């Protein structure tokens, strides 16, 4: 049993590279840093990896059961807002984790 029992096997693809995920707002404050280096080939994997590196995100930003983002948060992958778990990550990808509540 892995750290996230609810995670589908299909999402447990091999990791490929280190990616710096940039955190904004609540995720940044919880993690205590703006930038976290994690590994993953998809956004789902990045999310799982992020939770392992920053356990403070669990329960507040990342669902402890699925390893995926809780409602209210989204990734921005190369300037595109997405919650597609299977979105592939390239070594050069820019990945941001932000609140879905954009703006004022």
């Amino acid at each position, binding site marked *: 049993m892995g750290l996230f029992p609810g995670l589908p096997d299909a999402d447990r693809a091999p990791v490929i590279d280190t990616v710096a995920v*940039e955190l*904004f*707002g*609540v995720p*940044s*404050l919880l993690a205590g840093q*703006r930038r976290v280096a994690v590994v993953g080939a998809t956004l789902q994997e990045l999310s799982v990896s992020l939770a392992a590196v920053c356990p403070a995100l669990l329960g*507040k930003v990342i669902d402890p059961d699925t390893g995926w983002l*809780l*409602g*209210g*948060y989204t990734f*921005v992958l190369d*300037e*595109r*807002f*997405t*919650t597609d778990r299977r979105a592939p990550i390239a070594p050069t990808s820019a990945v*941001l984790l*932000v*609140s*879905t*509540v*954009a*703006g*004022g």
Partner: protein
Amino acid sequence: MYGTHGRLLRVDLTTGTSGSEPIPEIVFERLLGGIGLASYLLLRCCPAGVEPLSPENPLVFATSPFVGTGITTASKLAVAAKSPQTGVIGDSLSSSYLAIALKRTGFDALVVTGRAPEPTLLVVDDDRVTFRPAGRLMGLDPAATAEAVRGDMGAGFRVAAIGVAGENGVRYAAISNDGRLAGRTGAGAVMGSKNLKAIAVRGSRGAPVADPKGLATAARGLAERSLGAGTAKYREVGTAANLAFFDRMGVLPTRNFQAGSFSGAEAISGETLLLDHHTDKHGCAACTVGCEHRYRTRDGGPATEARLEYETLFALGSLCGIADPNVVLRAAARCDALGIDAITTGATIAWAMECAERGVELGVPTADLPRFGDGASLLATIEAIGTRSGLGDLLAEGSRRASAIVGQGSESWAMHVKGLELPGYDPRKLQTLALGLAVGTRGACHNRSSAYEVDFSDRLDRRSEATARASAAATAEDQAAVLDSLTLCKFLRHALVDLHGESAALHTLVTGRPTSADDLRRAGERISNLKKLFNIRQGWTRAEDTLPPRVLTENDGTPTHLSRPWLDEMVDAYYGVRGWDEDGTIPAAHLERIGLADLVAEIQPVGTQRSTAPVAV
């Protein structure tokens, strides 16, 4: 209708008279309340072509059926007048206990016209209206004014007041109540032009709701949900959280929109402010969200504490090249104390900073010019604006008028739409918002067009066609109109699964009138059209639905660049989605279709007659 009193209080400051007039139930049915009601009363009471700072320009305060019901965030006061800043509709909304107090007087709205012969305090105590000399209040900031009035009259009174800027006719002066501002479009200048320093209100009669038990249960549920993930950003960091993210996305207006990112962003980010400057947080009147974060200076200078929202932070920070949070806090505190809109203040000063950078003559010694990144000059210029002294007298006109006076090409870097300065979103990368800002009835406003939500999502991409963006912009505008009229805080929108459906259910419980989600959608469309009607009546033309030259390229339209042809194409599409003519006017048949024609039938078109018609019975 439950939740309303069905009448307004009309006050004429010139004659010192007042009277009650009925508000037909159909007005609430079709336009809900709040901004919808205020816009309607403004359209009815404001003559075409009126000079905004003349006695004839009505100053309207309106509540809604939700005010005072215990629905979280709903205690909001709508303020409307013809804007002295833009010449089109000026509508503002602020949360305060004054909204509850006004509703408890037994009136749903207050319409003030005329000009008092001397500085005046208007007192509304239930249905008793008195006028008191306010000479001793002149020169006081809004908070001190409210304290003095309540000290004299009792803590049961709630107070709206202007600061020195309103007294001096600064065109973007605000009306302050409970520390919150009806900030944009210059309602404070209208109030000042009427010699009205403050309004004190006390009431003792609520408006019964249709289903008190059902409403209490629903309101409790909404209050619980207001504390969920959908509002976490606001509760835990506040809107200041936007700044670092916007900087990273390249949409943080910097140095008068000369750039979209700022080297000092981290220093003034919401996260840094929270860690290094935060004191506490508060909620508005009857609000469970509690988004209002307060901060304190930490530099050893004069201690200052202020509330900071993202818009204040960007306007007095990155837009002016200021990376010192202590300066931004002092500037924000002074804007509040003087009673001026921080966005326009920062944007107009940023315009002057660029003038100084380019060597444009502004009629004052070089040493008196504000400079990008120079905190001392920013603070000095804010003071000058509030008192209309030196360069401040020019800048008190706002960037559109100031640039027209100065000329020398400076109009091209005056960053406004219809005279209202752009909020803290660079439209070059946010194209749905760009359209929303261009067509906005009160000018460039993110609160009346939350179209940025579409840009900050995966719903559209940069190549999306004009009609898709037009539809999204119109929908966002109508949704904002519904929230502003109900009156619910926009921060609740993420706590609601079905915004229109759940709001309609609340509306039914309050008013007793069965209301559907589609009823609210239609009301939103109606209110957006109503505001446009006001502008048309005041002489609006299509040429005003555009953006500053700086953010537009002149090349052929392409959905990946914000070019002038592309913006024009989006505006065309927006008019089409709205059912308007190509020149942006509203066909009579459309007014009929959306249920506005009978409400506005007897209001005269532009320039044909000065309307003095009372509100219809």
